[in-house]
């Protein structure tokens, strides 16, 4: 026991608390400033969901860590809090406020860590009026999907995340004995006509007689998306099956046969399939009479889940999401002259944790300051 206390001792330091809080403030400041350049999502990843902030000297692949990232600061703060309580604090009624406040903080930190690690990514479901989908798509990530379409009732999807694709990479697929070799890869590309190339030697991937993909700088803007393009070959037992070029901006599959099976390959936004389907019956964009000012956005959908005998309509509108089987569908956007709805799909089993933590913190503060106030008033009365 004494050994554990000895190990924990350095973490009980108040200096460490100050260091962590100061680092957290600096991180929040830097992240907020950089958000202008790289967008909310990338800022979140670089500053808060990282172990270090890295400095990349220009024209090099070096990554030099220069400041602790959110994971390290958060973990240190968590251990600091727990260790301080274990080593110093005694559970007395007088300290109940501080204990509650700190347990709220601990719960908040642990909850966030678990949400980061185990929770699925947020995604979007884009539905045209009358369209049915049983999957949502990532707004940030793409996949090279190799689909075995040989079976009559189902397809087998092998999803290679786009982060695994880079020039020269060889990827052995876990099914079908296939190997994908990436001959060239652009993390972001634009589709242009061949006549738009500045000169024939300009780097490009020909997609067809009328379009080529040219590399673009990666975008971090809030309203834009990176659309990768790839040139890849598929091998089976070292025998070349074929070479194709695909672009996520033009997600049409290519078909091929290997080992007596039919396959399709497509570069597309990463899909998250659900055990149920949603049909958009109607999207409404109501405006105040005589103006263009939006009054209400709503999507009337039909939820179909044969495994649970569920077939019902639901209305999704602002602050009234549909919650079903652990997924939450929010009204997030629209497109296509109000003919298409965009639903944000979130899956977060720990969504209640921040509410519980904040309640604990508020109660803890009220108790702590309330007790101080009472004893102060009492002293004044006596005096």
């Amino acid at each position, binding site marked *: 026991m004494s050994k554990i206390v000895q190990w924990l001792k350095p973490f009980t330091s108040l200096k460490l608390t100050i260091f962590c809080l100061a680092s957290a403030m600096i991180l929040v400041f830097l992240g907020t400033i950089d958000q202008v350049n790289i967008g909310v999502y990338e800022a979140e990843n670089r500053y808060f969901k990282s172990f270090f902030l890295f400095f990349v000297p220009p024209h090099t692949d070096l990554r030099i860590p220069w400041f602790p990232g959110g994971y390290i600061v958060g973990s*240190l703060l968590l251990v600091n809090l727990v260790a301080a309580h274990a080593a110093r604090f005694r559970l007395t009624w007088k300290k109940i406020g501080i204990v509650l406040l700190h347990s709220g903080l601990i719960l908040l930190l642990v909850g966030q860590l678990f949400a980061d690690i185990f929770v699925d990514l947020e995604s979007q479901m884009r539905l045209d009026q009358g369209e049915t989908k049983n999957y949502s798509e990532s707004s940030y990530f793409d996949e090279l999907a190799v689909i075995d379409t040989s079976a009559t009732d189902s397809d087998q999807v092998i999803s290679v995340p786009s982060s695994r694709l880079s020039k020269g990479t060889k990827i052995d697929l876990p099914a079908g004995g296939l190997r994908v070799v990436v001959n060239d890869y652009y993390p972001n590309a634009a589709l242009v006509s061949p006549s738009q190339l500045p000169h024939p030697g300009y780097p490009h991937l020909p997609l067809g007689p009328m379009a080529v993909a040219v590399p673009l700088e990666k975008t971090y803007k809030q309203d834009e998306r990176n659309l990768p393009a790839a040139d890849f070959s598929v091998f089976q037992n070292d025998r070349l099956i074929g070479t194709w070029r695909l672009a996520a901006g033009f997600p049409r599959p290519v078909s091929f046969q290997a080992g007596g099976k039919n396959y399709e390959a497509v570069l597309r936004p990463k899909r998250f399939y659900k055990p149920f389907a949603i049909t958009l019956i109607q999207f409404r964009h109501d405006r105040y009479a005589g103006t263009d000012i*939006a009054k209400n956005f709503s999507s009337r959908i039909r939820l179909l889940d044969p495994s649970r005998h569920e077939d019902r309509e639901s209305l999704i509108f602002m602050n009234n999401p549909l919650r079903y089987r652990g997924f939450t569908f929010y009204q997030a*956007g629209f497109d296509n002259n109000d003919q298409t709805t965009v639903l944000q799909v979130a899956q977060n089993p720990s969504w209640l944790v921040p509410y519980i933590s904040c309640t604990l913190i508020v109660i803890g503060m009220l108790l702590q300051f309330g007790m101080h106030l009472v004893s102060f008033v009492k002293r004044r009365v006596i005096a």
Partner: protein
Amino acid sequence: MNVKARKPKNRWRCGLARISQLHRSCAILFFLPMFLTSCNNDKIEVYRIPKEDLTVAMERGNLAPPTPEHSARWVKPDGWTEQPVSEMRLGSFKADGPEGTAADISVVSFPGEAGGLVSNINRWRGQLELPPLEEKQLSETIQQKEIQGAPAFFVDLQSAENSSKPSRILGAVFQRPSRTWFVKMTGPSALLESQRQKFFDFVDSFRFNDSGQSGEPPSPSRQKSTNDE
């Protein structure tokens, strides 16, 4: 006595001892979240899904389904047979003529101006082994019309009489606010003459969904957020 002996007298040494202890503990501390987050890496996934029923969408009568990212509808004239769409084609048709002849009709679309009208018409001329023309000369061969508030251009190109591959192209180019659409019919001259009216009916049937207000392509990356309104 023991307590006294343990207490380091030198503050500096005390600091060092604390740091080395900190190192040991830090190693464990860093290992834990790194191990946990490694569960979340970019793995290749394999899963099964029920077959997607695409046939329902394709069988809606004569009206071709609009693809969400391109948003145009058209009506296929009678007598044309639908062909499978390929990598670039959003619409593909075949018109059969006498003695096994056939004309090929394609619909393609590109963002922006797709290289401009002149270079595209000259590209079509190149396919018929005709020399490219300057903009001024070309404008004499192009007919202009307005469809749904945006310009549409028509050309009728024919290969030279002594050409090794005699052929003809009827083409239409729609310049929409965010995309350019190309409708092209290629085949023997006589067959195209007999199909001319159907081609123009087909071109007239095009209905675009692009909103003229924003000028933005209706693509997933440019959808509007309900927070912006």
